[in-house]
């Protein structure tokens, strides 16, 4: 057992140290000093391993402190100073019971968890599954208990709970969780179900658990259930259950099946990177119903009158209609909902509605954020990249014609965004008219802003797509400039809020910036497009 444990330990620390070296190499300046040969520097790595281990221990203590402090103690005590200490303690225990005993008992389970380390140890290094599970579970819960003691003692003392009861709480939670592990394993043995893979159940448990944990605070009700945890009989029962579970887990005969269920070679959870890139690709893959014909002889004819890039785009947008129409309809639905809520508000609560309407011009900078959110430019760029450009960008003629297809796509995306702007304008107009008190000039300026902003964001996403080429073949964004520019645009919105721009000033600023951006984008794409528009 000790040998298994030391092997496990070596795998963990080696991985951690290698990860440290990997990320150190990625640091901006100092990174270059760390060469690939560091991976072979065993003496150095042993030293770093000690540091990594110490960091892990420190992290263990800190994380328990943080959890108890931020998620349990803070909500129970801060903001509830009016309550007696008794009541605060009840709240504390209630939250603790629900989060650490119930929610974590369902969601935070290692015995059937899909972990890469499990796969490496058992499948690749041929460790005995029982030995692995025993060592892994043993280490986890032993350290769990140790890490909990200082945190629990601290908060227990703040709430006037005796020392010994604080330790008992730490022991209870540890043993209860061991018991839960056993229950999960038993469930698997009887039904073949791995509960933690049933995302619906897990999320339901998390949702209900958290809601139940924090609801009493909002409802001003003091639950007394948590206090059960302090009673000695309860602690004894939990300890007994935990002990029995621990013995049964140590003697469990069929760990191999359990490990097999959790560590299949093609389990998507084992390779999170691949899982995310597949998910990304599903978003922009052309839908089968759009392309659901093997003969498209008939379908080509309507487009035959067009030539070149117009032909290409006509075909692309016709054959990817559902890729773009679904996001469009989602956004229209959100706008519709906002409009309805606004109108309903003005009908049911005219005073609040007209108070909101009176501050119309103050709220106008929010249009920037709204149009950024609604803009369908990014979805269109992703769809274009993955389904069309990825294959055609390799041809030099296509790259050299970057400005031609840029312009055609710009007009199409503008069209889509203008539709959304129109919807938003209609919703806002509806609210303004029913609430009353909004000067017509401000309403008109709102429309101007919406139109200008929709054009702005159409240019913005497409321009960044052409110049920065942010998408990799895996469809994740690797270009830091992309993030920086988007942050800059978001900052503009904050700036507009801070400067307390009036409606006219805001409209003029937006229209001017949009016009300048338009001209700049056209020029820059013509000049730099052929160079930048290639597969990275």
């Amino acid at each position: 057992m000790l040998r298994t444990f030391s092997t496990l330990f070596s795998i963990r620390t080696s991985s951690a140290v290698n990860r440290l070296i990997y990320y150190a190499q990625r640091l901006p300046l100092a990174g270059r000093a760390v060469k690939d040969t560091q991976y072979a520097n065993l003496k150095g790595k042993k030293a770093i391993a000690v540091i990594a281990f110490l960091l892990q221990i420190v992290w263990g203590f800190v994380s328990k402190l943080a959890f108890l402090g931020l998620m349990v103690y803070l909500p129970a005590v801060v903001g509830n100073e009016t309550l007696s200490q008794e009541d605060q303690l009840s709240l504390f225990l209630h939250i603790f019971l629900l989060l650490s005993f119930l929610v974590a008992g369902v969601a935070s389970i290692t015995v059937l968890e899909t972990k890469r380390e499990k796969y490496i140890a058992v499948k690749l290094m041929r460790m005995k599954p029982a030995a692995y599970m025993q060592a892994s579970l043993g280490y986890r819960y032993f350290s769990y208990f140790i890490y909990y003691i200082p945190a629990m003692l601290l908060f227990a003392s703040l709430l006037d709970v005796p020392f010994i009861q604080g330790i008992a709480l730490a022991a209870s939670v540890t043993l209860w969780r061991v018991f839960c592990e056993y229950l999960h394993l038993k469930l698997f043995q009887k039904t073949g179900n791995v509960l933690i893979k049933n995302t619906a159940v897990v999320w339901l448990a998390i949702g209900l658990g958290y809601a139940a944990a924090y609801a009493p605070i909002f409802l001003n009700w003091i639950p007394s259930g948590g206090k059960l945890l302090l009673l000695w009989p309860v602690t004894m029962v939990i300890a007994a259950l935990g002990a029995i579970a621990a013995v049964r887990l140590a003697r469990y005969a069929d760990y191999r099946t359990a490990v097999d269920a959790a560590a299949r070679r093609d389990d998507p959870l084992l390779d999170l990177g691949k899982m995310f890139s597949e998910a990304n690709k599903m978003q922009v893959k052309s839908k089968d119903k759009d392309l659901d014909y093997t003969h498209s002889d008939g379908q080509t004819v309507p487009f035959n009158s067009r030539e070149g890039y117009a032909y290409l785009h006509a075909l692309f947008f016709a054959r990817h209609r559902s890729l773009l129409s679904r996001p469009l309809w989602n956004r229209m639905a959100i706008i519709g909902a906002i409009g309805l809520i606004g109108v309903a508000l003005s009908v049911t609560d005219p005073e609040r509605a007209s108070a909101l309407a009176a501050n119309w011009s103050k709220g106008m900078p929010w249009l920037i954020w709204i149009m950024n959110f609604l803009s369908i430019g990014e979805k269109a760029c992703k769809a274009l990249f993955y389904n069309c450009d990825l294959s055609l960008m390799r041809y030099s003629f296509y790259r050299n014609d970057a400005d031609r297809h840029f312009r055609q796509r710009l007009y199409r995306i503008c069209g889509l965004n203008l539709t959304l702007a129109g919807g938003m304008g209609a919703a806002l107009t509806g609210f303004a008219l029913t609430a009353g008190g909004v000067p017509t000039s401000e309403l008109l300026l709102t429309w101007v802003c919406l139109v200008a902003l929709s054009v702005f964001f159409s240019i913005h996403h497409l321009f960044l797509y052409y110049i920065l080429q942010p998408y990799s073949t895996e469809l994740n964004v690797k270009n830091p400039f992309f993030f920086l520019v988007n942050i800059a645009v978001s900052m503009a919105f904050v700036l507009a809020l801070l400067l307390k721009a009036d409606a006219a000033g805001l409209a003029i600023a937006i229209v001017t910036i949009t016009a300048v951006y338009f001209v700049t984008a056209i020029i820059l794409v013509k000049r730099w497009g052929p160079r930048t528009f290639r597969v990275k």
Partner: protein
Amino acid sequence: MLQDAGFHFQKGKIYGLLGRNGAGKTTLFNCLSGETQIDGGHARLKDGEGERKLAEADIGYVYSLPILPEFLTGYEFIKFFLDINRDKHPDANIDAYFDRMSMSGEDRHRLIKNYSHGMKNKIQMMLFLISKPPVILLDEPLTSFDVIVAHEMKNMLREMKRDHILIFSTHILQLAADLCDEIVVLNNGRLSAVPADWLGSAEFEPSIISLLKDTSHAEDI
């Protein structure tokens, strides 16, 4: 990676670029086609009008796995391509090109998404028949082709060598021996020609192997 890699390629011959994995064959192709920036040196093209720098438009890059826009049919894609190159081919007949590649009417109007590997390859080669770049680079051609498609491709290449400089990279000796007129070996960042009389001889394989084997490496078992 490539140092002093210098060579003189001529039209009318199929050149095979042989080298080990990681020798730099794809890098060399990327440098020629402009995908990768060249740190130093130059590539020049000598044609009827004199000598000039090799431009991106002069290169046709044939990928072993053709990546084509899947939402178009073969016919539409070629039509699009011809539209773009309208000034070079004012009255081109799309169907004639398809006939030359012996693609049936049904296949031409099928979505590229549903094309087999061989058909995608035909479309790719059609692009080069249309655009006629002086230099055609083929990166590991014929890998993962079935017997028939490989045979068709080889015939196509032999036909095309008259009007183009064809260079293909491979690490399969037998293919190089079968198809090429001249072999160029890329080893240690340098290009060197292999004497033409080696090509038909029985010692071809052992000679190439001894050329490529690096004595500083551990002996391959």
